[in-house]
Structures are given as C-alpha cells and as structure tokens.
C-alpha cells in the first residue's frame, strides 16, 4: 500500500506546478500509469481523495491513462506488445528485449484554474 505515498508525492508536484503558473486551483490532472510501474491504478484512485484534501488539487478530477507493455527485441529488432510478466519478443520469442513502454508513472498534464 504505497499508493498513498505516491499520491502525496503527486500533490507536492502539483503544488509546485500551481505556484510556477500562478494558479489558484486545478480542475483536472492526467497521470500516465503502466502495468510495470508497480502501482495499482485502482488503489491510486482510492487514495487520491485523502491525499488531495485541503490542497491546491482538492477539486481536481484525476484521470488515469493506462499504458501498454511494449518491448523491442535485441535480436530481430521487432517491436511488439508483451505481458507484464513475459517480456519476450512477440516476433521471434527471444527473451533479450528492452522495454519501450509500460513502466511509466508520470504526471502528464494539469488543467489550471486562475482567480
């Protein structure tokens, strides 16, 4: 259950974004989250109301954008979709691959409100 700690880190970042842009609040935020981020989207969603209460992000709607797991093969060079626990090449079956996406845990966009 580290999702609350993640939400608190998110609130800190949002506070910084609001200050940098002279905003009084925010109406929506977008977070990109991959299956290999180690964070469960549903738990993040549940923790969010507790973490944002009384902060600049209190009234912001949290949009979670799931990303898919994709790998590129070191042997044949093909890029393919993979399962989180089976990162083998979809084209040739080789296990020596590099992750292209799927481990993101990123604040991508904030919609700011100005008084």
């Amino acid at each position: 259950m580290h999702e609350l700690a993640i939400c608190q880190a998110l609130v800190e970042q949002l506070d910084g974004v609001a200050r940098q842009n002279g905003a009084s609040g925010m109406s929506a935020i977008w977070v990109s989250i991959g299956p290999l981020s180690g964070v469960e989207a549903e738990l993040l969603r549940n923790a969010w109301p507790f973490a944002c209460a009384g902060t600049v992000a209190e009234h912001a709607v949290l949009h979670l954008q799931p990303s898919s797991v994709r790998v590129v093969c070191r042997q044949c060079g093909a890029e393919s979709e993979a399962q989180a626990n089976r990162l083998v090449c979809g084209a040739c079956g080789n296990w020596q691959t590099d992750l292209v996406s799927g481990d993101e845990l990123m604040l991508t966009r904030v919609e700011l409100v100005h008084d």
Partner: protein
Amino acid sequence: MCNTCGCNITPGNRHLARRTQPAGTTAVEVLQRLLSGNDACAAGNRTRFDATGLLVINLMSSPGSGKTSLLEATIDALADRVRIGVIEGDLETENDARRIRAHGVPAEQITTGSACHLDAHMVAGVLDHLPLSSLDILFVENVGNLVCPAGFDLGQHCDVVLLSVTEGDDKPAKYPVMFRAADLVVLSKADLLPVLGDFDPGRARQQVRELANAAPVIEVSARQQDGLRAWTDWLLGRLQQHRADAGTQRAASAPALRYRPVGLGQSA
C-alpha cells in the same frame, strides 16, 4: 529531456499531453515522474556513497526469506577482507540490527511504522550515524515485501532479490516489477530443496529470463554455507568493478556515477 522547454514531448506521448481544455482554464504539460522527489533524494545519497567509493546493495525479498541470516553469514565469511555496514528496515523492533551488531559490524535500524518500504529520505536520515568513509559495502535490508520496495530508488548501486525455496518457483512471474530490476537473484534456504521436492530452480531461472533479465540466479544456504562462495564471489566482483568504474570516472573528472534507478523507468 527536461520539463522546461517541451523537448520531453515525443511523438509517442504527445497525445497524453495535448488536448483542448474548457473555457476559463489553462493547461500545462508536465511529463514528470511522480517519484521525482524521491529520485532527487536518492541521487543525493548516491553522490554521498560515491564520494568514498562505497558499494551499496539493496536487499529485497518477502518476509522470512532469510535476508538477515544471509547477511550474518556474509559478514562472517568476509570478516577479514571487506568492511561491511548494514541499514535494517522493518515495520517494528530493533531485533535485526541487534543480530547484525552481534557480528561486530555497524548497523542502523529504520522502523517504518506502517510503511511497507524504505524510501530515499528514510535512508538519508540514518547515513550520519554510519561510518561511511570506513566501509566497503553497505547493505540496505529493505522491508520484507515483494511489491512496494521495487518502486523506490534509495541511491543503491545494485538490487539483490532473495527467493527462498519454501516459496513458489513462480514468484518471478507473480512479482515482475521486483524481479525485473534484480541484478542478482538468490535462491535462499537451498539446503531444503531435496526435502521440498517441488521447487524447480531451473523454472525460477527461466521466469527471470522471461522478464528480459539476464541476472545470475544462484542457490545459497546461509545455514549450511552451501553456495555461499558464489554469493561472496559475486559481491567481491561487484566491489572490484565498482571501484574500477569510480576510478575511471574520477580520472575523467566526470560528475558522480549514474546508475539505473530501480523498477520505475525513465521519465520520457
């Protein structure tokens, strides 16, 4: 890549960052890792470790897999050759730090209360209590948990994950985030393999490979001292490599060494 000029917006993520917004609001594109605060603190820890050439190893496993027993055996086996220090992470009690101190090495206990993992700030908080400049290897024994510790970079150089043979050999497939990041997987309590009969080390190794991880998978019994040599050889090899890298970096007057953060990937 940065969060200032927009160069972190790529064709792959542009659709995430750009959309139309309602009247009366403005939108900003951020693309910043949620744990960037932790990452910055971890980088500070790493700079501090690198100043003295200290090798730091993050030891992770489920509760009861034998992390402390492995450390006790390691300290005894390397007593004359390597100066070891330990940071112990547990929800409660000083028990593990006491066990380690009984072997004559400095140990600091972090009790996390209800937190299920160590983070970089917790580790930073105890570094002043350890004689870092007179150590060769600092082990951070993370809270027993195969999920949360994988997400938090502490400033370590290597991740070692223990999988005891009393657990299932399919653990790597069940906990991919943790096992994908491992630099070494130790199959612990290996003396029980003949008794149990249903744990297949080959299967465990295969599942680590299917996570695109080439890390060695070794069998060790801390109690019977079997396989301990493979573990200590790996440690000594890493230490030697670490010092060689640090020497090269210093010679080139380069900034502090950079290592891959655990688990969570790059920001763009």
